[in-house]
């Protein structure tokens, strides 16, 4: 049996191998996805994001268990940072999810960011497709621990769950632009800690200031490690899904995201074209040297590279 058939038959090794191949930009994997793309579309994608140590992995574990109780098949993509210096990574999210490993209807994959700075890796888009075709009902994507502006998850997820913890900053943090704006559901984890109510209040007050819409992100206090309020959180996630589906906003959101995906695929290829061109005959190196010696400015150097690409195409 080939990879394609094995994936459709539910073979986890085939699923895992395809994700590896996509991570390594393997052409064969891309052609398999092209062929099987018609099988995708069933899965609902939930992004789980938040600061390092906020409890995303533990919460993902608990959410997965709750969805499994409801008979759903779950794929989990857990992203951790890749070293910009060595390309190595420690992928440690599974430590919090060991109970899930032997469940035949759960598939967990750890991924390094491999140079992406938006909180997920480039291959995450492909991995979601593999898990979708594989037959998962829900796909959780756990981002790297984020700071303020790693918001790529919103380009891939149907629902973004923002995991907050008490006492990470004053109320100014709550009104800053960026990460706080992408949440569809807020979870305040470690709600047994002092300050949880205050954090909830600050988020609610910030939401009060937003333009009135027909959907307002709910703020749910949970404790992942104590397994408290997880059911309520799942309900809120499902309410968001229902809202998107009833108002046709799910299609809108997916269309917007698909446009971004197509553009970013094109961008990626374009960038690698530029990289390849600029590395030919030490061009980039020579240009940098000229710029340093003030024989040239960086804008002119850029024009030189671009002209090579334009020439090749013309």
């Amino acid at each position, binding site marked *: 049996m080939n990879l394609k058939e094995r994936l459709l038959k539910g073979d*986890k*090794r085939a*699923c*895992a*191998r395809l*994700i*590896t191949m996509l*991570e*390594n930009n393997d052409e064969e994997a891309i052609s398999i996805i092209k062929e099987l793309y018609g099988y995708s579309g069933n899965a609902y994608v939930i992004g789980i994001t938040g600061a390092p140590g906020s409890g995303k992995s533990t919460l993902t574990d608990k959410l997965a268990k709750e969805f499994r109780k409801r008979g759903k098949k779950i794929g989990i993509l857990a992203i951790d940072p*890749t*070293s910009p210096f*060595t*390309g*190595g*990574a*420690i*992928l*440690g999210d*599974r*430590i919090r999810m*060991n109970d899930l*490993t*032997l469940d035949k209807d759960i*598939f*967990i*994959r*750890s991924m*390094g960011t*491999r140079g992406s700075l938006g909180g997920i890796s480039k291959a995450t888009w492909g991995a979601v497709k593999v898990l979708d075709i594989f037959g998962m009902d829900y796909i959780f994507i756990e981002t790297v621990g984020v700071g303020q502006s790693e918001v790529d998850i919103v380009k891939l997820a149907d629902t973004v769950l923002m995991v907050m913890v008490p006492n990470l900053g004053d109320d100014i943090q709550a009104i800053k632009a960026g990460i706080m704006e992408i949440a569809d559901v807020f979870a305040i984890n470690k709600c047994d800690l002092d300050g949880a109510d205050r954090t909830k209040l600050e988020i609610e007050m910030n939401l009060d200031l937003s333009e009135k819409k027909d959907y307002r992100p709910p703020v749910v206090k949970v404790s992942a490690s104590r397994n408290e309020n997880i059911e309520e959180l799942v309900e809120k996630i499902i309410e968001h899904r229902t809202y998107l589906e009833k108002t046709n906003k799910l299609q809108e959101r997916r269309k917007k995201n698909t446009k971004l995906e197509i553009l970013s695929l094109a961008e990626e290829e374009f960038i690698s074209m530029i990289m390849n061109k600029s590395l030919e005959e030490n061009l980039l190196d020579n240009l940098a040297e000229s710029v340093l010696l003030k024989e040239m400015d960086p804008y002119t150097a850029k024009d030189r590279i671009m002209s090579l690409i334009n020439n090749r195409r013309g």
Partner: protein
Amino acid sequence: MDRPIRVLVAKPGLDGHDRGAKVIARALRDAGMEVIYTGLRQTPEQIVQAAIQEDVDVVALSILSGAHNHLFPRIVNLLREEGVDDVLVIGGGVIPEEDIPGLKAAGVEEIFTPGTSTKDVIEYIKNNIKR
């Protein structure tokens, strides 16, 4: 090779000491590998499932409890039962010299005992992965 080598660092059995596993994990990370660490007290079944889902090139087992003669072969056999034949299985920890031939015969391809330099482990992995 341009793709990173993926390694599962796993602690089978009941001992609660993972300093060594963490040192290895960190060294492999610095050697440019993607290291999946699953934490303490893993069953052979969990390790094998994690190895499959993570599609690793290497399973690196660390053990200090003395149960290696039982646990290591069990993991190799489970991998074989699942049809996994392209993963390098290595082990390390407090393992007496006289146990090493038996473990190798059971399919653990190399055993690293205390005092091994992390460089040697890295070199060994780079030279022996199967794909």
